[in-house]
């Protein structure tokens, strides 16, 4: 066993063995997935004989007795302390983490992409952007990093966390065994088919798509149906107001916004549900999907982000967001008893490897190297290779922009081509180099399935994070959206090529200035590739160090 000393390291000063393992979280909430996970880990760590406390910046009133102020951590920490940092939103805790003694590790829950909040909630949008900046800043202060899904681990890898791996998400199944609220149950069990959705009303959850699917289901298949939405909804934010307005515009009957519900009311919702429907566009890990499986409710979910991974092949994961088609799946589950039974049985099998003892053992195995002070071998960072970002390469490898991207990479030794994988895989894999006719190509996982009708590549949070963290020269080859979100961070060593039909926005034009080229139909691709390769090579030597 390698005896790695972390003394005087930027990643933390620590003794070989730890006696205290604490956790740091921006906001400790009562009942949300992150809060539940933090409490679970604290109990687990205490069970293993460690002193363990939760430190937070803010907390719900119900959690007051479980938490200590984050500002006290540097004072409480010593060289035999270890800190698990939960990251899911802007925390402003990086300076505190840097100051604190002891070893530190990151637990990444994923951050909702900023694009979902642009023009809807500026504060949250800024917070999401800042959270991704913090993800990059934390890299220098932690020795280990885990994510709760392969989808999130891919982003950690893209952000430069070496040896980032997946920590199993622990679900406290006993917490679901609550008797259903009899009053609510009597109210909703009236012969109607109940479609259930549980979650916060934020744009990424796409409640408007849930309403559309339900409207199609009610109008085309089952008039005696009801939509139950358990989650806070008010009229005070534009998004909530737009959801309520959409309900009025579509006009489905029996749409019930229950607001925040307690455990017994939630139990009643699941007990009376015909199916659980999720159209969410972003999940780091979807606990309500597993909760529905545990309670024997068949799940229909749109396969975005970590949803296919959470579903694990059980339930019905759809790659189409067409409301009429998804409504058909709800109808099949209601009418075909044999198929429904198969789905429920498969969901039960899916949960088998997630029982508490198994998860606790796997968490222990994963955390042991960190707790024992075994630091992963830090590979030396490679040279600042050039990166050509062409999201559409996988979708249309023979398009002029893709040919140009490939020609540039082929002319630069060590350069790589980054693209977005067109297909959704049940289990996302960290991007790694694959050779396509000799060209090194890295495929990143899309945040959402690609629409068959669309020729555009979908967004990929991992790819954008990778670009933000790139230190070598970067060429945006038709990557308008990626450039819009990341050009400010890499402008000193970035170039761009655009086609007239997809002009970059004014901000990117201003940032890149003369380093922005246009690919016209009559452009000589080889000549442009040669010029770009020369500029990238010269610019990389000048700027990227």
């Amino acid at each position, binding site marked *: 066993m390698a005896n790695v000393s972390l003394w005087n390291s930027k990643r933390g000063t620590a003794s070989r063995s730890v006696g205290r393992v604490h956790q740091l979280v921006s906001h400790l909430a009562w009942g949300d997935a992150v809060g539940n996970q933090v409490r679970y880990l604290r109990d687990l760590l205490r069970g293993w004989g460690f002193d363990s406390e939760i430190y937070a910046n803010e907390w719900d009133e119900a959690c007051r007795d479980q938490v200590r102020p984050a500002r006290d951590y540097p004072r409480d920490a010593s060289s035999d302390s270890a800190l698990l940092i939960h990251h899911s939103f802007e925390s402003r805790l990086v300076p505190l983490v840097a100051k604190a003694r002891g070893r530190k590790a990151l637990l990444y829950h994923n951050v909702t992409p900023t694009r979902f909040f642009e023009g809807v909630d500026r504060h949250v949008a800024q917070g999401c952007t800042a959270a991704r900046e913090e993800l990059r800043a934390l890299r220098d202060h932690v020795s280990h990093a885990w994510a709760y899904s392969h989808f999130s681990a891919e982003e950690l890898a893209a952000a430069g966390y070496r040896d980032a791996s997946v920590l199993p998400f622990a679900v406290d199944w006993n917490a679901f065994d609550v008797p259903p609220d009899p009053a609510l149950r009597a109210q909703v069990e009236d012969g109607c088919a109940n479609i259930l959705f549980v979650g916060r009303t934020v744009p990424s959850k796409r409640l408007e798509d849930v309403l*559309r699917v339900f409207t199609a289901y009610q109008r085309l*298949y089952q008039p005696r149906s009801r939509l139950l939405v358990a989650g806070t909804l008010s009229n005070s*934010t*534009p998004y909530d*107001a737009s959801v309520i307005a959409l309900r009025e*515009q579509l006009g489905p009957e029996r749409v019930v916004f229950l607001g925040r519900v307690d455990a017994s009311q939630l139990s009643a919702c699941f007990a009376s549900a015909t199916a659980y429907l999720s159209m969410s566009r972003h999940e780091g890990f979807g606990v309500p999907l597993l909760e529905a499986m545990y309670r024997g409710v068949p799940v229909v979910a749109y396969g975005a982000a970590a949803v296919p991974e959470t579903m694990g092949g059980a339930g019905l994961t759809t790659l189409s967001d067409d409301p009429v*088609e998804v409504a*058909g799946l709800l109808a099949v589950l209601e009418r075909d008893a044999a*198929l429904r039974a198969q789905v429920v049985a*498969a969901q039960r099998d899916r949960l088998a490897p997630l029982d508490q003892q198994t998860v606790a053992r796997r968490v222990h195995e994963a955390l042991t190297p960190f707790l024992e002070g075994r630091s992963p071998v830090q590979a030396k960072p490679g040279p600042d290779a050039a990166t050509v970002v062409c999201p559409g390469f996988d979708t249309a490898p023979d398009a002029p922009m893709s040919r140009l991207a490939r020609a540039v990479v082929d002319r630069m030794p060590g350069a790589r081509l980054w693209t977005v994988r067109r297909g959704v895989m049940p289990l996302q894999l960290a991007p790694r180099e694959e050779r396509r006719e000799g060209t090194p190509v890295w495929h990143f996982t899309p945040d959402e399935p690609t629409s068959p009708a669309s020729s555009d590549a979908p967004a990929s949070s991992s790819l954008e994070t990778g670009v933000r963290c790139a230190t070598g020269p970067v060429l945006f080859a038709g990557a308008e959206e990626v450039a819009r979100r990341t050009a400010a961070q890499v402008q000193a060593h970035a170039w761009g090529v655009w086609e007239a039909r997809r002009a970059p926005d004014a901000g990117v034009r201003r940032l890149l200035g003369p380093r922005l080229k246009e690919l016209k139909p009559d452009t000589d691709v080889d000549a442009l590739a040669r010029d770009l390769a020369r500029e990238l090579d010269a610019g990389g030597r000048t700027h990227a160090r």
Partner: protein
Amino acid sequence: MRAEDLISTHPTAEAVAEALRRLPRPEPEKVDALRSRFTATLAPASSAAWPHFLEGARRKRDSRYADAPTSHRPVVGPALVMAKRAFRLAFQPFINEALRRQVEFNESILDALALIYEHQRTQARTQALWRQEVDKQLEQLAAERKKP
């Protein structure tokens, strides 16, 4: 829905697609009407840009820093400008602290105004859609009354 658009191991995606084909087909007119309704109610693409009418206020929200000092006086002007600059230079940290709450308030009020603006846009859009729907129904009624 095609089997390729589904991820399901048990039952297989093909079995689910087959079960979907067995469902009674909804009337095409109903499906078309529903699709048109969905298209009409699609929200416009959101923009990260601030509302135009708030741009002026945004530029002035940080009250800690004044415009560059000037003076119209011909002789003592340069001395006054220098004195003003020196005052700013010496007291800027105190000015920052004294006006910190004011800047926070300015930012909060701008956010609130932007929120109200977005809210109002949503409401206006909803009302416009309602009006279109009512007009359409009135036209249908009028057409039916004209029929012999």
